[in-house]
């Protein structure tokens, strides 16, 4: 038991928490941008998965170049998000239904592509990835920098103001000449880039792509957005909580403390349900969220 405590208080554990939190945080930041503009983003899960696959493919193709993998990941995220935006912003379909469908699509396409390219039904070939000390890795610090950047963009730029307006009172923005659908498209694409990056991190910090590897993180990221009252900074803080939960769960599996591994694995999911129940009343969603905008 004291072994367990020691390892929990170590720097390696902290590094692990941060490494594990990063995909959640990136997805949550993306989610908060799109949700702020009024588009619910259940599709984060599928976008992450596509980003993870693309990044692994990029790493394999380029022989381990991180920048290539990350850009593949972002591109895949943007492409997936574009499909989502087409269906919910342009065609104004129900956002939750479409989001679930995008996730199903991702879960179906990734094994399809795995078979096509790598002749495997579940794994991509092993890649270099982000090994070693993440504090020394510039990509980590770049990702950390994104956090305040997203916050500043939402709160202090012209585009951020329009996003906030469009998510709360789209008709008001429309009467002032702001294109509601245009801003929403941009917000969704932005969330695709960020969540795709989060997915890329997933496969790069492991050793490649594994089928279904997002494992619900996209949904948990969404829960973090809700917990964080749709503010990017607070959502990231909530992600730390979930990252911590996942790290604990991994650590506990290597220590035998009497709780079966299967139950330990449920920890992040149970935590999500509990926090959703506790927080939902206090946070204030963008007023127009989930509803497509139809001008007269």
């Amino acid at each position, binding site marked *: 038991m004291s072994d367990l405590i020691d390892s929990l208080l170590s720097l390696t554990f902290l590094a692990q928490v941060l490494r594990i939190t990063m995909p959640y945080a990136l997805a949550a930041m993306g989610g908060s941008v799109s949700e702020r503009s009024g588009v619910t983003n259940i599709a984060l899960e599928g976008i992450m998965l596509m980003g993870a696959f693309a990044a692994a493919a990029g790493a394999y193709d380029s022989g381990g170049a991180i920048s290539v993998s990350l850009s593949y990941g972002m591109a895949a995220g943007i492409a997936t998000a574009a499909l989502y935006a087409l269906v919910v912003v342009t065609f104004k379909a129900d956002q939750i239904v479409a989001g679930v469908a995008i996730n199903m699509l991702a879960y179906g396409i990734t094994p399809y592509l795995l078979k096509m390219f790598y002749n495997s039904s579940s794994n991509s070939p092993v890649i270099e990835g982000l090994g070693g000390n993440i504090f020394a890795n510039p990509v980590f610090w770049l990702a950390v920098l994104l956090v305040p950047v997203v916050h500043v963009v939402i709160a202090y730029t*012209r585009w951020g103001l*329009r996003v906030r*307006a469009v998510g709360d009172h789209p008709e008001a923005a429309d009467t002032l000449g702001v294109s509601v659908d245009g801003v929403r498209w941009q917000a969704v694409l932005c969330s695709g880039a960020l969540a795709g990056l989060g997915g890329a991190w997933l496969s790069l910090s492991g050793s490649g792509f594994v089928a279904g590897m997002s494992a619900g993180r996209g949904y948990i990221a969404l829960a973090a957005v809700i917990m964080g009252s749709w503010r990017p900074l607070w959502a990231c803080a909530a992600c730390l909580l979930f990252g911590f939960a996942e790290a604990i769960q991994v650590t506990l599996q290597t220590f035998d403390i009497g709780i079966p591994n299967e139950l330990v694995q449920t920890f992040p999911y149970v935590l999500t349900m509990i926090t959703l129940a506790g927080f939902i009343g206090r946070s204030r969603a963008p007023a127009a969220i989930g509803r497509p905008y139809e001008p007269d």
Partner: protein
Amino acid sequence: MSQTEAGQAAGAETSGRPPALELRRVTKRYGALHANQDVDLRVEAQTVHALIGENGAGKSTLMKIAYGHVKADSGEIWIKGKPVGKHSVAQSIERGVGMVHQHFMLVGPLTVAENVILGREPLRRGLLDLGRASDEIRALSGKFGLDVDPSARIEDLSVGQQQRVEILKVLWRGCDVLILDEPTAVLTPGEVRDLFAVLRGLVAEGMTIVLITHKLDEVLAIADRVTVMRRGKVVEEMPRGGLSAADIARAMVGRPVLLRVEKGPASPGDVVLEVRDLHVTGSRGVAAVRGISLDVRAGEILGIAGVEGNGQSELIEAIVGLRRTDSGQVRIGGRDVTSAAIYRRYEAGLAHIPEDRQDRALILDYPIRDNLIFGQQRDFTWKVDVLDTGRIQRRAVELISQFDIRPDDPGHECGDMSGGNQQKVVVARELSRRAPSVLLCAQPTRGVDIGAIEAIHRRMIEARDRGLAVLLVSAELSELKSLADRLVVIYKGQIVATLDGAELGVENVLDRVGAMMVGADRPTEEAAHAPP
């Protein structure tokens, strides 16, 4: 009290400027509904032009077309003497036409400054220049008497203040033609006078005002010219001079209109609805009802006068059970229902006509017959939970004929009906409950055409004469004056005045009431400025 004698009668030639706004043969259809049919409108510069008509006459649609928010099916739009090709909101603003909407187009969680600059944001080093925006807003506020704090959040402001922000929005963009859509709907008589003073100031500075309204007295108070619309067409176009309310009303409806409903004296019986020291918290955590007590007797109509947002909605919601009561008591027929489930209150004798029928009263996807039993479905159920479809159909046929509901097909979807007919369904349903003893009505004739208004008013008097205790909340003082036997005034969650039948008959009582609606104890100032 109408101004700019120069603007009257002679028209554009006097001021030498082209018409501020001109619409030629504008037509707009929504499916089978002709919202606007071949409309010609000419608004001269530097005047106040009133566009009046009943609800549904097409005034709002016409102005939204003028503003570029809605696209017309055919016709031309000319702004300041030049035709507009491809119209859009951006075009209008560019040419100096701005619109102040009836339902404010303001983003609640954002500040005044952020709302004003939205769409045309000034930048400094890539970021929003809120400092400059605030300075410019303050300058405009001072110039035109539109006092407001640029850093305040919209959702923290009063309705009157929010309207000032709406006006500032268009002024900040350099608009000099302002279209105001039903601007006084949510204002007290005092605030209306302030607004009109502001408008006169704007015209004096060379601006043009188009006022969309359905209130005759406003037209008389401020307009230079009047255009009357009915059923999508322009029926009259005349200068203000020499017009009376009756003239305009007749033009609006096409026949002489009874501005009052026939009402016999009340003979109140026992107290049926008792509210004791009620405290209710509103949606944003603020106390909305702060210690209200009232009694309503069988056979009387108690009116509640008050500007929207002073707790009357929350009061009704608490009595119905849609909102939690913090403390106090509600009794129906002697039974304590303060924390009872909603359906039990209906069983105790409650009937409710909500203020927003599409949101609270009707299921628009359901046919008329289903909406007619909605809320009473337990009464139409056999054993094992099965509905008695035969009885439901028969009741629908009966009520449709009794209340003149159109179309008269019980299977017709309610979403596809006019506002007046939808409200008739609600009224028919509530008055046909098994044994109603209390009728709560909130804004019962909002969004309803004059013909249906008369019918609904008659039904309310009928209900009263049948022995129901009627509680009527209305923002229309004239409605209260013609229906209520007693009147209370609500202000900031409390009852600040009670008037009985005799006091209600007095000449300028509405002015007094209006003053109390803003918390003025002594209405002397208001009385001095009262219209003759």
